[in-house]
């Protein structure tokens, strides 16, 4: 009897295949945006405001223009189209004209023959400023007498959520105040791009970004060009983490290229990168938790304040997330949440990995530990008792419909093996002790602590926003056999989406050769590479396009076969009929087969005036347990181990999932222990990697992880996004472990050595929680002022080129979602 081997397709989903970009990245041959180069190219430069708030009296560019080698200097008056732009609201000037609202705001741009000439030309531009009083404290921004950042005031959005009876009585109450500092995404690749003027009067822009189409949506109106004349191409992205959701140099380089008729490259240095992208919102959070004696949560009251800085960016969505996730992944029958995002004259804040959930997780998990202490209960058990599940009702009234294995995530995490006990003092590797690389410890005076945190977040966009993803798949054959070509505008930012898309195409089409075509705006929008969404969204689009291609191919197969009945399948390069090969796929590909599909997630609904709605499409949950050692006298910390369990739906590439958990944990560890963009009077004091500290490999503990796979209905293969949850919980877990080790309150991150050595008391609120601002919410304030733009407009656009301008597109978007 002969053994029949079933044809299989190698490199499909579920396998940790080598990444498509692994070899060039490891070898250093991968070109990042800052490596871009074109014949005859000019170097752009940006002149930025040194003041957080000032009136521009005059700008003298004559000195720069007279400088040999300078080809153009442009001011706000040279912007041919719309003067402002923004991801959600067009409140940010392309170039400031009358006022600057943060230190670092672009005032003038120029282009010169070489970088040194560009730098000198920038120095020769003289801006006469009248310095104005600035508001750089988020609580002060809400006061009536505060300087106004925008004419319409300093409230950006207020979210008010009332659930059940917020006055419900509870047996035990705990109360706390928490602060989180400004964190930076610190992508290793600074902002860069190259704009090349095109013969049709348009421009081709090669840029490192997270969402090509939303960039174009903001760029084209400012250039005064129709969208189809602005073609964006993805350049090599050196990390994003939210920093590339907003525009940086895109409009500037395009303006200069169009003006000079020559390619213009703008590449920020490290300091300019810190000035040129948004940051994680700093937050102040007051929370009160009430529970029954048995540990059941009764009520949560939260007041959240976040500083959005000078321009809106995605602050409205961030405060939406912070408010809707404020109660944590727990069943909370009664809640009152008031979240306010304010404008200040600080540098703008926007998207960063975790997007509002990080700040509140730090607070709600500290509260859960407090509650456990007050009740004399085990903190893990307390979390299990209150864990969300499928069919739970959230404070917004939303019913959790997808998978929600919170209890499983908590149990799996708690069951992961603990690290070995610390070796006796003097015996261990000195480098394994806190500050050990500095030769400061032999393991004496160490206290070990263990902390636990659970958190969650939405996947994909929320509050009525239908952020669809398009993809085109073409199956053809050449001499080497069948090959699938995947065309998607999804931005590969280092997370591995290109590898995932190739795996999906292999699984769906049974071919091993897959070409991922360069992402550009020549195909429909893939939506943003953010909100942990691309695997679900663009993965879903590619899966659907492949299915359409497959059906078309099967139609061909059936036409050419004598016995057309039976089940057709593709695997290992073969067409199978009821499991029997009927021929190579290539044999049916005299003509290529092509299909384009758009994937939509489950519709969501915006919040109403009481914060009720169905704001989120799907959720991902994570738990981490941190083990730390603290040298109490030095206040130095060594994180010994992180145990992580994450709800991933299904791991399409297990190694990448683990990579996301480890990288996400590193970023959470950074916020827990060292990462803080220090602002003084609105100015960044540490815009360098010497002074803005991010964890190194010497600071990272081993991460042991468990993947909880409970498929998400409606998502491709049940896969959930995995990029953010680890970042959300790592900070909270590490600080919980530090509290356990030291017994200190530690209510602000990053925790400093001073705090751990007992030299600094816990932070106290400067004032009581500010009352909710009058007359605003849940609509973002800039919305009411007709500033909506960017991603909202994109929804009105057909998947292809040539969309016209819609005068008030947001009205339709909003109107269409409430019914």
């Amino acid at each position, binding site marked *: 009897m002969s053994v029949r081997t079933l044809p299989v397709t190698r490199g499909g989903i579920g396998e940790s295949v080598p990444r498509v970009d692994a070899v060039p990245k490891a070898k250093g041959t991968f070109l990042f945006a800052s490596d871009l180069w074109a014949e005859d190219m000019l170097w752009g430069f940006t002149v930025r405001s040194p003041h957080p708030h000032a009136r521009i009296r005059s700008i003298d560019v004559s000195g720069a223009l007279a400088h040999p080698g300078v080809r153009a200097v442009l001011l706000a008056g040279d912007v041919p189209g719309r003067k402002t732009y923004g991801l959600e609201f067009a409140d940010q000037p392309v170039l400031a004209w009358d006022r600057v609202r943060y230190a670092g705001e672009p005032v003038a741009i120029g282009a010169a023959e070489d970088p040194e000439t560009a730098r000198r030309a920038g120095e020769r531009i003289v801006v006469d400023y009248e310095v104005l009083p600035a508001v750089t404290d988020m609580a002060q921004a809400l006061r009536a007498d505060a300087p106004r950042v925008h004419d319409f005031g300093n409230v950006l959005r207020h979210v008010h959520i009332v659930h059940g009876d917020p006055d419900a009585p509870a047996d035990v109450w705990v109360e706390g105040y928490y602060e989180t500092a400004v964190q930076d995404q610190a992508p290793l690749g600074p902002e860069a791009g190259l704009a090349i003027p095109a013969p049709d009067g348009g421009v081709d822009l090669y840029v490192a970004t997270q969402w090509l189409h939303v960039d174009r949506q903001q760029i084209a109106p400012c250039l005064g060009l129709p969208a189809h004349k602005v073609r964006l191409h993805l350049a090599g992205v050196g990390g994003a983490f939210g920093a590339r959701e907003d525009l940086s140099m895109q409009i500037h380089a395009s303006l200069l290229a169009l003006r000079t008729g020559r390619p213009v490259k703008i590449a920020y240095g490290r300091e300019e990168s810190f000035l040129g992208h948004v940051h994680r919102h700093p937050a102040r959070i007051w929370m009160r938790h009430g529970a029954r004696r048995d540990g059941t949560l009764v009520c949560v009251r939260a007041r959240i304040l976040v500083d959005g800085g000078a321009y809106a960016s995605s602050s409205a969505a961030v405060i939406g997330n912070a408010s809707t996730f404020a109660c944590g992944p727990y069943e909370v029958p009664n809640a009152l949440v008031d979240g306010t995002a304010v404008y200040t004259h600080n540098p703008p804040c926007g998207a960063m990995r975790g997007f509002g959930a990080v700040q509140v997780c730090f607070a709600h998990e500290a509260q859960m530990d407090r509650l456990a202490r007050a009740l004399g209960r085990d903190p893990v058990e307390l979390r299990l008792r209150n864990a969300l599940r499928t069919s739970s009702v959230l404070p917004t009234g939303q019913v959790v419909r997808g998978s929600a294995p919170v209890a499983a995530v908590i149990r799996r995490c708690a069951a992961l093996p603990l690290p070995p006990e610390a070796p006796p003092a003097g015996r261990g590797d000195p480098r394994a002790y806190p500050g050990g690389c500095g030769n400061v410890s032999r393991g004496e005076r160490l206290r070990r602590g263990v902390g636990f945190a659970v958190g969650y977040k939405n996947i994909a966009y929320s509050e009525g926003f239908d952020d669809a993803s398009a993809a085109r798949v073409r199956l053809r054959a050449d001499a080497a056999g069948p090959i699938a070509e995947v065309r998607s505008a999804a931005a590969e930012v280092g997370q591995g989406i290109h590898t995932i898309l190739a795996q999906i195409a292999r699984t769906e089409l049974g071919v091993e050769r897959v070409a991922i075509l360069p992402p550009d705006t020549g195909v429909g929008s893939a939506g943003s590479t953010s909100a942990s969404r691309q695997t679900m969204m663009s993965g879903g689009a590619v899966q659907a396009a492949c299915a359409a291609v497959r059906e078309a191919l099967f139609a061909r197969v059936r036409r050419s076969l004598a016995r057309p009945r039976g089940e057709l399948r593709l695997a290992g390069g073969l067409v199978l009929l009821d499991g029997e090969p009927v021929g190579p796929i290539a044999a049916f590909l005299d003509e290529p087969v092509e299909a384009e599909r758009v994937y939509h997630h489950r519709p969501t609904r915006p919040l109403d005036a009481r914060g009720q709605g169905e704001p989120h499409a799907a959720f991902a949950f994570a738990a981490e347990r941190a083990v730390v050692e603290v040298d109490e006298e030095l206040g130095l910390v060594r994180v010994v181990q992180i145990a992580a369990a994450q709800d991933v739906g299904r791991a399409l590439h297990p190694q990448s999932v683990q990579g996301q958990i480890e990288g996400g944990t590193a970023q959470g560890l950074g916020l827990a222990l060292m990462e803080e963009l220090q602002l003084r009077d609105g100015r960044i004091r540490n*815009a360098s990697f010497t002074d803005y500290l991010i964890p190194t490999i010497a600071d990272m503990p081993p991460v042991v992880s468990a993947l909880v796979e409970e498929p998400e209905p409606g998502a491709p293969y049940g896969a959930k996004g995995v990029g953010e949850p680890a970042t959300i919980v790592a900070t909270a877990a590490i600080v919980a472990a530090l509290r356990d080790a030291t017994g200190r309150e530690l209510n602000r991150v990053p925790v400093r050595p001073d705090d751990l050595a007992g030299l600094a008391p816990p932070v106290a609120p400067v004032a009581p929680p500010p009352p909710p601002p009058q007359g605003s919410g849940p609509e973002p304030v800039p919305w009411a002022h007709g500033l909506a733009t960017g991603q909202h407009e994109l929804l009105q656009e057909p998947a292809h080129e040539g969309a016209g301008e819609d005068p008030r597109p947001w009205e339709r978007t909003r109107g269409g979602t409430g019914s």
Partner: protein
Amino acid sequence: MLRLPPFTYLAPRTLEQAVGQIGEAGPEGMLVAGGTDLYPNMKRRQFEPKVLVGLRGIRDLGRISGTPAQGLAIGACATLAQVASHPAVAEGYRALALAAGAVSTPPLRNMGTLGGNLCLDTRCNYYNQTYHWRKSIGFCMKKDGDICLVAPGSPRCWALSSTDAAPAAIALGARVRLVGAGGERVVSAADLYRDDGMRYLSKAPDEILVDVILPPADGWRSTYWKLRRRGSFDFPILGVAVALRSGPGGVIEDARIVLGAVASRPVVATRAAGLVMGQRLTADLIGRVAQAASEPAKPLDNADLTIGYRKRMARVYVERALRELAGLPYDGAPGGAR
């Protein structure tokens, strides 16, 4: 992108050539060894020399010769990686090996030299910034301006000596050989430094540091402790070097305690060291010495972490370093004796 300003690079093969070239360049010229300090500073326009005289091509400057018994001479261009891993340094001059090994990261230790480390520019939060940043906030007197932003009203600059090797070299009683147009001279490592954030070296700008001469190591034990937040990269927030020579019965015959990153020069804690002379190290004595050693440390708000913390750590670090050398456990240590 930060770019270097234009300059002419000279690569002399001999010390004589180098002395001639740096003399000829005058105030427009600067010496460079590994460049790991100077080049980043040039990119930020802290220095804009027109001529750089590179020392790495001079063979003799890379040598390490001698033995712990006779004394050691380390060429100024020996890399920090070489110094950290050299058996003779590790055996007789442990503080220096530890200090060199604690500088920054492996790639920087492969490029950075001992001479460059000893001549490292002083540092300050208001100074180690890009040109744009310094211009935004207003220049300070160390470069382009005329006031001190940390201590307004101060007639001097308080930028911090941040070299890891200097406290160790001073504690070990090292001397340095300087060669300039006027000839050669040997000065103690301690005398190489001045208490001035701007003119922090006592040598003339055209004098070349040729080698570091370490005395015979007999009877000396030493250590170096470095405070930084991360396990790698960071400049010291505090450095403590301690060297002790003990005689029969553990009586301390000589002692040097030196603090780095607390002032514009390494601070030699003479009074504290005096307390241990002729004594045996006990827990109680160590506590008093540590207190005395930390007194001269007067940190200002121009480095990472708070003044109060840095000041407190000076005492803790001296205490721990002495305990290490005395073979004592730290107080309250769960692990007990080593």
